[in-house]
C-alpha cells in the first residue's frame, strides 16, 4: 500500500509559517513602521513562497524569506512615503501599540534600557542587530539580505554592541 504523506506544498508551508511568521512580521514592522502593512508584506512573502519549489528554497530559507520580505517592505515604505527617519522610540511605540498588550507591558518593565538604547542607534545598525540577535542569522545571511558586505555587517554589529555597552554602563553609573 502506498504511504501517502501530506501534500508537499501544504505541509511544508505550514511548517515554515509556524517558524517564520512571527519573526518576519516583527522584522517587517520595523521597516514599514506600520503593523498592518507589515502583515500584508509578510503575507505576500509567503504567497510568493507557495510558488517556489521547496527543494530549491529549503537550503536557504531564512535568507530567502527575509530578503523577499525586506524588499517588499521597503517598496511599501517608499510608496507610503514614510521616509522620515526613525526617531527615538517612535517605531517602537507604534509597533508596540498594535502588538500584544501583555507582551508590551512585560517588555517595558523588564527592559534594562537596552531596547531604549537600541532604538537610538542608526537604522541600519538596528536592523542588523535584530537580524542577528532576534532572528539568529549569520553575518553572511545578513549581508545577503541587506545587500551589504560581510565586513560592513561585522562593523555595524561591532559598533552597535560597543555603543550599547557604553551607554548601558554610563546609565548604571
Amino acid at each position, binding site marked *: *500500500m*502506498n*504511504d*501517502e*504523506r*501530506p*501534500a*508537499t*506544498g*501544504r505541509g*511544508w*508551508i*505550514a511548517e515554515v*509559517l509556524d517558524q517564520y*511568521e*512571527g519573526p518576519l*512580521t*516583527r522584522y517587517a*514592522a520595523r521597516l514599514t513602521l506600520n503593523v498592518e502593512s507589515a*502583515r500584508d508584506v*509578510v*503575507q505576500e512573502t*509567503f*504567497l510568493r513562497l*507557495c*510558488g*517556489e*519549489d*521547496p527543494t530549491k528554497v529549503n537550503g536557504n530559507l531564512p535568507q530567502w524569506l527575509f530578503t523577499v520580505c525586506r524588499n517588499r517592505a521597503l517598496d511599501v515604505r517608499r510608496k507610503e512615503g514614510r521616509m522620515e527617519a526613525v526617531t527615538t522610540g517612535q517605531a517602537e511605540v507604534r*509597533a*508596540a501599540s498594535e*502588538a*500584544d498588550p501583555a*507582551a*508590551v507591558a512585560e*517588555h517595558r518593565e*523588564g*527592559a*534594562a534600557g*537596552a*531596547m531604549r538604547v*537600541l532604538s537610538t542607534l542608526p537604522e541600519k545598525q538596528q536592523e542588523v*542587530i*535584530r537580524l*542577528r*540577535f*532576534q532572528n539568529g542569522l*549569520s*553575518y553572511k545571511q545578513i549581508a545577503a539580505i541587506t545587500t551589504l558586505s560581510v*565586513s560592513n555587517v*561585522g*562593523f555595524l*554589529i*561591532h*559598533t552597535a*554592541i*560597543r555603543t*550599547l*555597552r557604553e551607554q*548601558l554602563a554610563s546609565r548604571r553609573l
Partner: protein
Amino acid sequence: MGIEKNDPKLTAFALGELDETEQAAIQTEVERSPALRQAVDEIRETAGLLTKELQGEARIGLSKDQRQAIEATAVGAALLPMTLRAEGGLGCRLMESEPRPQGSDLHTPQGIGTTTKTNSTGSRRLRRYWIPASLAASVVVIVGAGYSLIPRTFSSLSRARELGPSGDRLVCAENAKGINRDIERTALLSEESNRAEYKRRMAPTPGDGTVVAKEGEGRGVDLNFTGGGLATLPPALYSHNVFLSLDPRENGSNGYQVPFAPGPNEAGAQRLAGARSTLGWVDSVEAGRLRMPPDGDAFSTEAFDAIVESPFLAIAQHPLSTFSIDVDTASYSIIRRILNEGALPPPGAVRIEEMVNYFTYDYPQPMGDHPFSVNVEVADCPWNGDHRLARIGIKGMEFAPDERPPANLVFLIDVSGSMQGPTRLPLVKESLKMLTGELSKDDSVAMVVYAGASGLVLPATSGHHKQAILAALDQLQAGGSTNGGAGIQLAYDTAAANFIEGGINRVILATDGDFNVGIVSQSDLIGLIEEKARSGVFLSVLGYGMGNLQDSTLEKLADKGNGNYAYIDSLDEAGKVLVDQIGGTLMTIAKDVKIQVEFNPAQVVAYRLVGYENRMLRARDFNDDTKDAGEIGAGHTVTALYEIVPVGVEVELPEDIDAEGVDVPVEVDPNAIAAADGVDDEEAEIDPLRYQTVAGTAPVAANGELMTVKLRYKAPDGDVSERIDYPVTDLRLTLDDSSDDFAFAAAVASFGMLLRGSAHAGELTYDDVSELASTGLGEDASGYRAEFIALVAQAKALPDARPAGN
C-alpha cells in the same frame, strides 16, 4: 598580529562568525591576553542581553485569515495559484487554470463543504456540512462522478471553463455571517443510470477494493487494512464527516462516493449501511472502523481486468478469426515488476500478446506498397506436439532518426499525491528528459500537469531549447488528488493549438492512472479520450508506480485514444520505450490495423488465437472502416500466434462456446457467409469465404493452403482502409527448423499461459519454457531475452508457481 580590543574582528570572533583558521588564530591571542578575554566576555554579555531582550520583544504575526489564506494557496501546490475574490466577501478557490487577479485579497476558507449525494430514497439532495473554523484545514468536499458545483453568485467564476463533462470542483468559503449561496449542479446523472452503470461494470466480489478516506482538498488518505479486512480511520478524522470512495479492484473504476462518519454516529452508520445495500459489499461499520469482508488478497488498489481465455473454435462454426493488432508492451513490464517483487502476477495482468510484443523480432522491412511487411511462419506447437503453431509477424517501416517528421508533443503529467515515490514522478521526469534529449529544433514540447486541477506549465517550446523543458520537468512536485479529465482536455487543446500538418502530433500521458476527482468513471474517461482521438492527435500512455496502477484504465485509454501503452518501471525501460523505440512510440505509420484469418477446412479442424482476448472483433468489423483498431508505429513488430489443430487430430471443443464471457463473433451458418457477395454496402459485409462455398469446401481449398491472412490498415491521417491478402502454406517445419524468433515468441507465449494457469498448457513446465527460450536466444543485443529467461526462473522459484488450471 595583535588584535585590538576595538577590532570588529574580535566581535566577530566572540559571536562565532569567523572561519576555523581565523577563529583558531584569534583564540590563541585571546587566551594570552586578559584584556582581550575580558573584551570578549563583555561582547558576549551584551550579545546575550540583546538576544534576551529582542526575543522577548512584542510578538506580532499574521491574522488568522491571512494565515489560512496562505495555507489554502499552498494546497494548490506549485501548480497554479488561484484565488478569486467574489462579491459579498465570499472567497472561493477554483480548481482550474486561470491567472490570479492582481492584488486580489485572499479570504479564508472557513470550512464549508458541499456535495451532492444520492440517498437510498432516490432523491438527490444537496447537503451542506458545517465544520468549525478550527478544522478548516480538514474541509471535505467530494464530488462524485459526473457532478460539479458552481456557485451562481460568483460572476467572476462564470468565465470558468467547463472541463469535461463533470466541470470544476470548488471549495467555497463563507464569511461569518453565513451568506447563503446557490449551488448549481452541472452535469447530472440520474441515480438510476448511475446504479445501472455501476452494476453493469461490477460483479460484486467480497473483499475487493480499498477504502479511501478523502480529507482536505479531496486528497486521498489510504486507510490501513488489518489482516481481517478492517480499515481503521486515523483518529484525526474521527470527528469529521468523511467521504469514502469505494474502489472496486476489478475494472479499475471508482465506485460510489458515500459519506462515512465514523465514531458513534448513528446517521453515519446508517448512511454507510445504505451504501452497502446499493453496492453490496461493505460488511459492517464499527465505531471508527470499516469492516470489509475478508477474502481480499493483496490490498493494493491495482486494477486489472479479468481475462477469459479464448477457447478452440471449430472451423465449421467459426471460419473467420478477426482481431485488432496491439503494440502495447505494458503487461510484460508489469509482470516483470511483480515477479521481481516475489509474487505471482494476477491472471488479469497477463496479456500474452503484450508479452510477446515486448520483444523485437527480426522480421524483414517492408519493401512494397505497404508501410509494413507481413511474415508468417508455421511449425510444431511446442506445448502440444499434435498441433501446429502459426506465427504472424508484422513489421512496421523503420525511419532513420533524421527522417522523422517534426513532432508536436504535449507531456501530460499526473502530479497528484499518489505520484510521490521514486518509481513515480521522479522516474517520469527522468523518462521525459530522456525523450527530450532526442528532440530537435523542429520539434516542440508543451507540458500540462494535472492534480486536483490542471495547468499548462510549459507552453509549446522548441526541442532546441532543452534547458527550458528540463527545467520545467525539474520543478514538478507531486501533491493533491487526481482530476484526469481536466488534464486530458487541456493537453489535447494544447496539442491542437500547435498542430503540425503531416507531422507527429501526440499527447504523452504519464500517470499511475489513479483518477479520483472529476471524471472518475472509467467509461466517462474513455469516452473523453475517444472524442479527443478524433482530432488527429495520437496518444502514448506511460504507466508508472506500483500498488495503485490502474492498468485496466490505462490500457483502455491507449486503445481508444489511438495510442500505445507501456509500463515504465525503470530507467532502462524508459530508455527502451522513449529512446530506442522512439520512432515506434511517436510515429504512427498505420492506424486501425485489423487482421482477419480464414482457415482452410481441408487442413484445419479448429484453431485458437493465443492472447488478444480483449482485441477481438466481429467478422464484419474487418471491412468496417468506422471500427477502431490498433496502431503500428515506425519499426514496431507485432506478433500473433494461432494454435492450429490439423485435420485428423482430435480436439475437445467446449460445449457452449458462446457462453457468457467469451467474446466470440456470433457467426452464422457458413453458407450464409459464403452467399454474401462481399460488396461493401452501407453496412460492412463479411468477405465471402475463400475455402468454402455454399456447396461445401471450395476447390481452392485443395491447393494446400493452411489459411489466408488478411490485413486492413489506414494511413495515419486517412479514413479509408487498404487491404493486404496473404495466403499461407504450411511448409511442415519442425520446431528445430523454425527460426529463433519463432522459438522465442512461442516461449514467451507459453510462459504467459503458465502464469495464467491456462487450460491449454497441457504438460508444459517452466523448464520447458526456459529451454525453448534458450534455443531462441539469438543475438539478444539488448539483453531483454536473457532477462526473460531469468524471469522464468524467478517464476519457477515462487512457492505457488503453477496455479491450478483455469
